[in-house]
């Protein structure tokens, strides 16, 4: 496991103030924000930056991390490899979730982070010695499925690293596998809730829930928008000019006959009702017409083009004043 240098991830010095850390984080969070970033690895960078901020902006976690970093610097293996924090490295520290932190982010953090702070970012122990009761926190993850899975429904196995409380009441990380049923008609951005699969509860209280955000992998033929699917449909100039009946494959694996209207143009949108994602309100399949030119690769084809130019003189640049 690689030892993570959280200071260099944020581009700050070891003695950076809280304000320096906040400013550095905000600058990087803007740079790698998924809606604006043009960087290819923006997602990975954002995760790294979030993780570094999570540790360095929390006094207790930062102090514990600094202590661990010193320990590794003194006795770490020559290749910089890092396996597990030494026993007792966190003695004297107690980690708390800050008031403005949500449970969603730790799920994305690295193995290094989990090995130190656990998935909830803390030891799970509370001061005062009094036993406490608390329902487990909800946990978040994402699941990427194919469009075919979304159309037909599927069963998928999901591997998760999760936290359990051992007999001594200390958290430990375990790998577990869940069978998840993906219902037909699920859409990107929808959440699937798995009751009781979040973090364990304390003092006999129930576990939290696991929320899976559905993502659908890009499809070579269809683009998804809400319930609807979009597909480019090539037609010949003859079909577009004179109108035609063409056969179109449907997302569910069948075929439909579609009427191309006379005088159709490239970019025209045709709707096939209720052939989008299934559901209580089924989506539609939209066909975006593309005019595909027959190749002029034979004498007969070239002659036909010349004949067409004579029979139907046409200046497509007229509106440009050319």
């Amino acid at each position, binding site marked *: 496991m690689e030892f993570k240098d959280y200071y260099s991830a944020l581009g700050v010095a070891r003695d950076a103030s809280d304000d320096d850390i906040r400013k550095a984080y905000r600058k990087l969070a803007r740079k790698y924000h998924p809606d604006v970033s043009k960087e290819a690895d923006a997602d990975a960078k954002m995760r790294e930056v979030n993780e570094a901020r999570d540790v360095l902006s929390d006094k207790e976690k930062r102090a514990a991390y600094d202590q661990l970093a010193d320990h590794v610097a003194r006795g770490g293996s020559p290749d910089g490899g890092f396996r597990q924090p030494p026993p007792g490295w966190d003695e004297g520290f107690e980690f708390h979730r800050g008031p403005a932190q949500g449970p969603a982010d730790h799920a994305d953090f690295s193995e290094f982070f989990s090995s130190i702070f656990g998935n909830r970012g803390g030891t799970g122990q509370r001061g005062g010695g009094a036993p406490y009761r608390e329902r487990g926190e909800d946990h978040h993850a994402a699941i990427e499925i194919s469009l075919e899975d979304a159309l037909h429904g599927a069963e998928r196995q999901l591997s998760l690293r999760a936290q359990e409380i051992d007999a001594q009441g200390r958290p430990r990380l375990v790998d577990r596998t869940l069978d998840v049923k993906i219902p037909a008609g699920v859409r990107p951005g929808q959440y*699937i809730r798995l009751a009781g699969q979040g973090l364990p509860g304390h003092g006999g209280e129930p576990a939290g829930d696991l929320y899976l955000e559905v993502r659908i992998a890009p499809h070579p033929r269809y683009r998804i928008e809400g319930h609807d699917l979009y597909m480019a449909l090539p037609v010949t100039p003859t079909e577009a000019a004179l109108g035609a009946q063409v056969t179109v494959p449907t997302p569910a694996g069948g075929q439909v006959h579609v009427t191309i209207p006379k005088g159709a143009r490239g970019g025209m949108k045709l709707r096939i009702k209720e052939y989008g994602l299934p559901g209580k309100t089924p989506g539609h399949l939209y066909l975006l017409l593309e005019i595909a030119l027959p190749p002029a690769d034979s004498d007969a084809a070239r002659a036909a083009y010349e004949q067409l130019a004579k029979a139907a003189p046409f200046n497509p640049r007229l509106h440009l004043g050319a």
Partner: protein
Amino acid sequence: MRAVTTVLDAAPLTLRELARAVGAEDRWVVRLVEVEILHVDTPAEPPERWHFRSADLQRALAARRLERDFGANLDTAALILDLQAELRRARALLGAHGLG
């Protein structure tokens, strides 16, 4: 292990469940409704009777991050979320016309 799964939109969340899912207090979710980050079908009903779906959970999580990451207050977060939604709509429109 086989887990019981439900799609949020078929079984919406209560106010308490949404608050728990984003690691917040109930009153924080009420504030999201007040500043119109979230819209409920029955705003006149007491908050215990409100229901929230996938899009609400997504917006609540995004608001939580804006608040935490940039110190945005909820009015500013509401504006940013509306602008983000507008940006996505515009990009989808470009994509629908083959310009994406």
